[in-house]
């Protein structure tokens, strides 16, 4: 029942996001425009708003699924893709690219993909030698903080204020001005990444009883760890590459699902992916609805929306836990 309501809210939010923009359109107008092939309406809906909405949905799904997988692997409710540092390294690479003169979404995205690949590779190597999962958490925290310092250094050495502003702009995350090519890249990445993570649901479920018990049940913990890291790296790296840094979705989505739907633990990951998608579309709707002089950034809104939701849910958790 709750899941049904949730899905309905998600669909409605998606539809709403098609109505809102510089040119407000009523549902009937959109329907008629699309049916009659009205050039402006078709252009606005099919080439601007729909790809933007689908990209926000896919990116949110990627981050929500990745967050749920990491929380299951680390058995830690605070884990999210940002904790491992892959998105941090991707952001650092993007900032480096901008300061080196890269311009345009594709050039900057290319740097971010390269950064995500390097960060992911380093983590996968670490995962293959780490004896314990906690070692990997600490390693990831180190990598995240190294990437953060690197980004700060790039800001520090930025040649002009314009470059600094451009970097800030990218790092705050946005799905504005993206087209179907971006959607295509993210769709492939999300399918591969989420496919890997979904295939690991059973072993991740057993890891809830601890690594020793899971091993005795035939789970190859090291291999599971390696694949989760690979899947999460693909998801979070590509999300940064197509839309910059959008925080909080990965952390909040699984908790929102637990708080609102309370599904069995095995269903958390697919539901967190859906919820992540919904939250991101909702946040992007907020970006367009809140009237401001400067353009609001998606990453800012996800944090503004996600943090209070998480705080409320955290307090509610205390009621059922000792």
């Amino acid at each position: 029942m709750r899941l049904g309501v949730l899905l309905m809210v998600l669909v409605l939010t998606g539809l709403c996001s098609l109505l809102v923009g510089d040119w407000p359109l009523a549902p009937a107008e959109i329907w008629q425009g699309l049916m009659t092939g009205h050039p402006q309406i078709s252009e606005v809906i099919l080439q601007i708003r729909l790809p933007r909405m689908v990209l926000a949905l896919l990116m949110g799904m990627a981050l929500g699924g990745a967050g749920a997988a990491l929380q299951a692997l680390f058995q830690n409710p605070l884990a999210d893709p940002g904790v491992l540092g892959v998105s941090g390294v991707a952001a650092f690479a993007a900032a480096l690219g901008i300061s080196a003169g890269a311009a345009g979404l594709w050039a900057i995205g290319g740097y971010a993909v390269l950064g995500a690949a390097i960060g992911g590779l380093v983590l996968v190597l670490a995962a293959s030698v780490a004896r314990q999962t906690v070692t990997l958490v600490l390693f990831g925290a180190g990598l995240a903080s190294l990437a953060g310092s690197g980004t700060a250094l790039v800001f520090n050495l930025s040649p002009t204020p314009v470059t600094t502003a451009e970097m800030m702009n990218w790092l705050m995350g946005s799905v504005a001005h993206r087209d179907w090519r971006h959607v295509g890249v993210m769709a492939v990445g999300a399918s591969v990444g989420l496919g890997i993570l979904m295939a690991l649901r059973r072993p991740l479920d057993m890891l809830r009883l601890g690594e020793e018990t899971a091993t005795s049940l035939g789970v190859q913990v090291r291999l599971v760890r390696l694949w989760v890291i690979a899947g999460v790296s693909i998801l979070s790296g590509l999300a940064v590459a197509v839309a910059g840094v959008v925080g909080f979705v990965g952390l909040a989505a699984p908790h929102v699902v637990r708080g609102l739907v309370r599904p069995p633990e095995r269903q958390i990951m697919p539901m967190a992916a859906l919820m992540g998608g919904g939250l991101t579309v909702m946040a992007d709707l907020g970006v367009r609805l809140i009237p401001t002089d400067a353009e609001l950034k998606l990453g800012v809104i996800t944090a503004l929306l996600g943090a209070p939701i998480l705080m409320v849910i955290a307090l509610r958790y205390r009621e059922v836990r000792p």
Partner: protein
Amino acid sequence: MTGLLAKDITIDHGQGPILRGVDVVLRPGTLTGLVGENGAGKSSLLRVLAGIDRPKTGDVSWQNEPLPTLPKRDWPRMMVYVPQHRPVPPTATVQEVLTLGFGHMPQKLQAQRLERALTRLALDRFLDRAVVTLSGGERARVFLGRALVSAAPLVILDEPLAALDRKNKALVQEAFQAEARSGRTVLLTVHDTGDWPEADHILTITGQNIESKDSVKPVADVVG
């Protein structure tokens, strides 16, 4: 039916061997207690016998099949292991913890064994409770109950009586002694040999070796 056979096991975590060249034989239908001082290597040995850790030297086999060659997916059919460290999943109910990982069992069999485990360990009224809301002793019984739900022939329990009061110790003792009588191979760590009067063997870790005392029951009979 050869049961579990471990030959020439040396365990070394990098600071000198804990156990050197020990042999262990566990026959089906027996209950074996492993005794040793704190830090003697009881848990390390259990982890090696359960296939969690590889020994520095030596081999472990179950029914003549070396553990590393047994397909991982068959492990839950072969063995159930309850470690000393039992993290409690934050949202899991008693039923979930009791059945998690036993998806290979036919549903009817699982339901029957679940019912039996709940009764034997006096957990009936907790079935739908979140494990985190239970006391230490209740949680311990839930995790031990996994070994009763599982139908695997080899049962390995680390510190099964820790955190239990006298009444619940008796429940656990009776339950696993009955499992051994029913043909399962039970190995568990023991603090006081008197805790398991029906143990068929007591293995004592002294120094880096193991001394085996077969069948303590006749001794008890003589004393009695």
